[in-house]
Each structure stands twice: as C-alpha cells, then as structure tokens.
C-alpha cells in the first residue's frame, strides 16, 4: 500500500537526440517509487539505472555546487540535485531541458560554451597594467574583510545558466549578456585589484546588449538557485553606467 513515503511518482521527460537522424522531440513517461528525501537527480539516476540507460542528463557534484543539473521542473528552472520530489504533492513531474542553450540530448544542454563566451566578453580576469611588475617575494596587498566578503558573495555563482533560461529578454535577443555576465562583471568592479575604470566597464556593458537591454523581468532573481542578489546588482550597474560617468 502506498503512503506519502513511498508513493509512485510519474515523470514526464522530454526525449530527443539531435544526433539521431529523423528523431523528433517527444514526452516519455516513467514511474518511480518515491524514497524519503528523494531529489529529482536521484530519481533520474534510478530511471537511468533501472529503466532506460539511454536517457541523457548532466550532473557532477550532486550538491548544488557544480551547476550542471539545471532543467525545467514543472515549469520552473531548477537544479535537479536541490529539488525534492516531496515538493510535488500531485506526484507528476515534468522535466524539460533548459531553453536558450544548445541541446546535447534529452535534458542535457551545453552551458559551457555560453559561459566561456560570457567570460571572454566581460574579460573575466584581473586587469592591472602593473601586475607584471609585482614582486612575488612580498606579501600580497591586504584587502578589507568587507570587500572580500562582497567578492565572495558575488563569486557564489555556479554558472548553472538558470538565470539565462529564466530571462525572456535573453530568449528574445540572443546577444543580450544576461544576469550571469552582470554578476561576473560586478565581481571585478568590486575587486580593488582590478584597475578597470567605470569607462572601461561601460565599454563592455554600456549598450542594449548589456545593462540597458535588461528589461527587469526578474526571472534571474526569482530562479537563481544560489539566491544571488541579481535585481540589486543589475540596478546598481544600471545606475553606475547611466549616471556615473
């Protein structure tokens, strides 16, 4: 007899392999017996091990750190490893791949390519023309703990891509940088070791593909699995870029 601990869950999963000629996207149903504390990630592994070894999805850390297992779970972009099946009282769970990324197959998308492009676009490294002359035998310059905390807070981004999938602006305009890029840039803007000026940051995000293209739909804010302050951060960048020059 089923009770709340071991009810039967129905998973409806998008199946499509673009590498197979003639394959078309279709929804397939799987049944899984729920276990206590079960996550979507655990259920998917069970499906792959016991029912269908061909199903494709990504994971590495299983703990919400690597950002690999992002997918659309019952209409919300989420990390599979941080989503409990117990959150779905009806027991029917629909899984779709993240939109806006190149589909590798089924629930697996290529977020890496987009993140690499983003990193290059915001020049995601410390810019300091005098860095070559640094004396490596000396102690590194001290940083205020508050600034270090602020940088750490912004660096918690795991590049899962949920913010981009949740952003209708990005879906509409592919060249739009998106929240992950703004967060990365803000991280370097805060860092005193990066000597880039406001004008130099303007050159990166001062247009409609950058911060002025953001329509403040706040999908990034609402679906970020790390609860990063996207709304506050983008508003700050907008003010800084629009008025601070």
């Amino acid at each position, binding site marked *: 007899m089923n009770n709340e601990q071991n009810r039967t869950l129905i998973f409806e999963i998008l199946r499509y392999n673009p590498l197979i000629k003639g394959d078309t996207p279709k929804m397939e149903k799987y049944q899984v017996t729920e276990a206590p504390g079960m996550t979507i990630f655990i259920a998917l592994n069970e499906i792959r091990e016991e029912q269908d070894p061909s199903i494709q999805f990504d994971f590495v850390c299983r703990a919400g750190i690597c950002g690999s297992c992002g997918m659309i779970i019952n209409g919300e972009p989420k990390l599979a490893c941080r989503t409990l099946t117990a959150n779905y009282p009806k027991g029917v769970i629909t899984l779709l791949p993240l*939109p806006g990324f190149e589909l590798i197959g089924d629930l697996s998308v290529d977020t890496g390519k987009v993140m690499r492009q983003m990193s290059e676009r915001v020049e995601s490294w410390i810019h300091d023309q005098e860095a070559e002359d640094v004396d490596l035998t000396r102690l590194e310059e001290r940083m205020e703990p508050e600034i270090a905390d602020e940088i750490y807070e912004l660096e918690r981004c795991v590049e899962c891509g949920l913010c981009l999938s949740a952003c*209708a602006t990005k879906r*509409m305009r592919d060249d739009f940088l998106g929240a992950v890029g703004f967060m990365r840039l803000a991280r370097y803007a805060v860092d005193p070791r990066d000597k880039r000026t406001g004008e130099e940051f303007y050159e990166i995000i001062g247009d409609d593909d950058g911060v002025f293209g953001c*329509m403040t739909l*706040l999908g990034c804010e*609402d679906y970020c699995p790390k609860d990063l*302050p996207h709304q506050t951060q983008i*508003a700050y960048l907008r003010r800084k870029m*629009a008025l601070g020059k």
Partner: protein
Amino acid sequence: MENLVLDNKTKKSRIPAWLDITQSGTGLVLGLFMWVHMLLISSILLGAGSFKFVANMMELSFLSPTGEGYPIAVVFAVLGVFSLFILHAGLGMRKFPSSYKQYKAVRSQMKLLNHEDTNLWFYQVLTGFIMFFAGSVHLYIMLTHPEIDPYISAKRVVVSSMWPLYLILLVAVEYHGAIGLYRLCMKWGWLAGKDAKKSRANLKKLKKTLTAFFLVLGILSLIVFILIGVKHKDTNPNDSTAKISTTITQQYLKG
C-alpha cells in the same frame, strides 16, 4: 563616417544610456501624472460643481480677474503631455518584440514558466500598444477642444460615443502605469531599503491595490459622466454649458 568603422577601438556611445534614462524619466512623469489626472477627474463623484471647480483651477481661473481662466493653459499642458507620450512610446517601442521570431520566443517563455514579472511586462507591451491609438485620440480631442466642463465631457462620453474608448483607455492606463512604476523601482533599485526582496513584495502589493483603487475610481467616474450625459443629451451644449457651469460654480464657491 565613424559609424562605418567596425573595430573595438571605437568608443561606445552614451546614447543608449540617455535613451534608457529618458524612457524611465518620461514613464515616471506620465505614470504619476495619470494618477493625479484620475484623482482630478474623480471630482465628478462629488458633483458637477466640484468638477467645474477643479476644471477652473486647471484653467488658472484664480489668475484671471474675471474668474474665467485661460483654456490656453490646458492646451500647453496637453501639448506637454502629448510630447512626453510620443517620446515615451517611441522609446518603449524599442523593447517590443520586433519580429515573429522574437514574439514566438517571448510567448513560448511565458507558456513554459508562467513567471509573474515576465507576464506583467507583456501586459505592459499590450496596453502600451492599445494606448498608441486610444491615448492619441483622447489627447488630440483635448488639444482641439481644451475647455474642460462636466457637461461637455458628459456629452462627449454619451453623444459622441466616447465611453467605449475611455473604458479601454482607463483599463490600459491603470495597468500600464502601475506596472511601469513598480518596474521602474525594480529597474533602478528605488525604495529597495535594506531588504530588496521584501520591498519588492510590498511594492507589488501596493501596485495591485492602487490599480484596483484607480480602476474603481475611473469606472465610477465614467458611470457618473454617462448618467449626466444621458440626462442632458438633448440640451445644446453651447447654450447650456456656460450657463449651467457658471451657475453651479458660483453656487459651489458661495458654499
């Protein structure tokens, strides 16, 4: 010629920044103006005399020795609002889906996530589109017939069959304006306080309350205008308006 040069040495223009500021600035002024406008119109709920009193104030009657006011003041005000309206519409249009592909992307995103703030933005696009037409008609009429009077307005609503347009305009303006002002706060980080999430939830509640308040106010005002319009349908506005209005205003001012 510099726009023909495609290299990364060309400095980014400041124009996108100014366009963004101007879009927000015109939206802020228009949004607040529409709330004040609605409050002034709703003076009809206190009677035609109150509306006439407010109208006279708008025509700067307190500055004229005869108390008749200057309808030209209304023309200038309408011209100002019309200019802001056109500027705001032009700038807002930049954010509309500009092709079927973009439209399909937005619609599929809305269907996939059913995310409230994304939906709110889409309602703004729709209501903005409606206002291109409905707002222009109203503003043009106010520009060519600047005299504000309860009986002229009532006749316009009933005899000239303007009530459906005003009803559509009312719904479009109240939704567009309130959503816009809420989104402005989000966009620029205004009123965020120490807890931006909490402030957002509160602002959203306030937005819903104000939309409901102004919609009720607007609908009641429209009903009163319709009732006045039906009652005075057969009177000649040119004869009656001045006399009725003046009498009512005098009575009102006498208390």
